């Protein structure tokens, strides 16, 4: 494979940080929160955007898309779940390791003028919501988050979140309320005009979409798709939307909730 190790630091016109150092790593059994020193990325980032991360080692050709879990001063953080080979390798990164990271990429969650925000996450789809919550809170919005997980193991990711009004559900009832994130929503007192931000597996997105329509709310969704380039070049990551087929890496990952067809 080779190659990715040796980038030329004189070409600095890209928001691409080679040899990005891990400055902190928290391992939460199957998940990791990685803090990376990446000033050029941190400076430009907005919640909802993602980075393409080169998995260290031979034998990983494609970079992995990972949402920004936070971005502050010179650092970005990523919340990574070990799902396949590559993400598993990323969760094993330790302080001092270096990775290549490109970004920030894609569209951000619109936050302007939002006073009440409801953040709905399922599984690793929760990842972009911490950063979003931070930004919304800093802008004075009232933020509530509802996170759903399959089971005890998946819910370990919750340990990474510091959102104040946070409720959790697990399908097996092992952590928080038993049921899906929809059960959490049903129990919430949602102010009219609340903006919904959703990210998670397709069935959850579809359910949240139905629920927001029913409640008369507007909102945004961050979608996942298998990616090759992450740069809008290959058309590998398209999803169907009301605006036709759109690329998650370029027109997305954030779309209006009412324009996607999960």
């Amino acid at each position, binding site marked *: *494979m*080779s*190659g*990715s190790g*040796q*980038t*030329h630091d004189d*070409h*600095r*016109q*890209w*928001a*691409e940080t*080679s040899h990005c150092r891990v400055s902190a790593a928290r391992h939460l059994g199957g998940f990791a929160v990685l803090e990376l020193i990446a000033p050029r990325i941190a400076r430009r980032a907005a919640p909802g955007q993602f980075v393409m991360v*080169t998995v260290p080692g031979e*034998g*990983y*050709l*494609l*970079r992995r898309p990972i949402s920004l879990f936070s971005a502050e001063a010179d650092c970005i953080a990523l919340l990574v779940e070990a799902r*396949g080979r*590559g993400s598993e390798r990323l969760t094993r990164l330790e302080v001092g390791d270096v990775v*290549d990271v*490109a970004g920030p*990429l894609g569209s951000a969650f619109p936050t302007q003028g939002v006073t009440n925000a409801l953040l709905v996450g399922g599984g690793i789809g929760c990842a972009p919501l911490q950063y979003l919550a931070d930004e919304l809170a800093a802008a004075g919005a009232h933020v509530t988050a509802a996170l759903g997980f399959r089971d005890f193991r998946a819910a370990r990711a919750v340990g990474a979140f510091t959102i104040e009004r946070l409720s959790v559900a697990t399908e097996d009832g092992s952590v928080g309320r038993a049921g899906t994130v929809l059960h959490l929503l049903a129990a919430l007192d949602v102010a009219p005009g609340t903006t919904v931000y959703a990210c998670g597996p397709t069935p959850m997105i579809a359910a949240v979409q139905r629920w927001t329509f029913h409640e008369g709310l507007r909102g945004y969704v961050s979608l996942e*798709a*298998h*990616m*090759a*380039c*992450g*740069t*809008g*070049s*290959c*058309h*590998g*990551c*398209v*999803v169907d939307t009301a605006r*036709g*087929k759109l690329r998650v890496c*370029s027109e997305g990952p954030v779309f209006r909730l009412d324009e996607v067809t999960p």
Partner: protein
Amino acid sequence: MSDRRPPAPETDLSVRLGPVELAHPLVDASGTLDVLEYARRYDGDYLADFPYAAYVPKTVTADPRTGNPPPRVTETPSGVINAIGLENPGVHAWIAQLGEWAALRAPVLVSVGGNSPEQYAAVISALEAHLAAAPPGTVPDVRGYELNVSCPNVVGGLQIGADPTATAEVVGACRAATARFLLTKLTPNVRDVTEAGAAALGAGADGLSLVNTFKAMVLDRDTLRPFLGNRTGGLCGPAIKPIALRMVAEVARAFPDTPLVGMGGVMTGLDALEFIACGATAVAVGAANFTSFEAPQRILAELRDEVAARGFGTVGEARGIALRA
């Protein structure tokens, strides 16, 4: 090479691909780099700084195409598989966008697809008409075409390139539609890649590019069903490089003075030099673009170093040296 040498910028890397002068041998492989999308993500003037010696856009067809159902891409051992299915807005919408990258400071070779000779020729005729009428500065520097008769992911794609007669018909129709440089991009999914090559050259192609992707299949780990929405896709990347090199060598031997664009798994400057050693005039870089924004710059720097370190005065001196008896 483990010990890096100082760069040798004086090494002459320029090549002539038929009538097209290239500052160096590297071009992008169709479908792997979108110049406008890159420009959006770049801090400087990307159209001026474009790192490849020519730009090959994603294949354009006469009609708009929505492409294949997702998922469309994934990784394989040392490879990438894709089944995009030639998604593109159709030649008319495509032409309407030309002004946005008219300032690109590199010659352009337009990749053309279709299901019939007429469809291919329609793309070229529409573009030629536009170019003839366009005021200077409103269109990029289109120098030629690459006929993609080899996409494994659409009906009519692979089929054309695997059939010499059908290939010749497409090339003949396109030859009648343009006087510009005409490449035909060959499929590797054949017994003898020189057969379609001979047909294309016989029908008027000026040069050949190869290889497009290998028809392949990946299963979903959980369901054991085909992973890609299109069931099968096209394999590229380092995995296929040894096969691609063999095919380029065969074509270079069969058609010694023909302009050739070699490709398949180029990740390093040495890889590119290997294609040149097998007879390629220029080398296209595809999947490597997915590894880093700076892949073209890195590969070019490595190629320059490799050429210099081996004592070649020009990159042309390396051409075909793997073919000698």
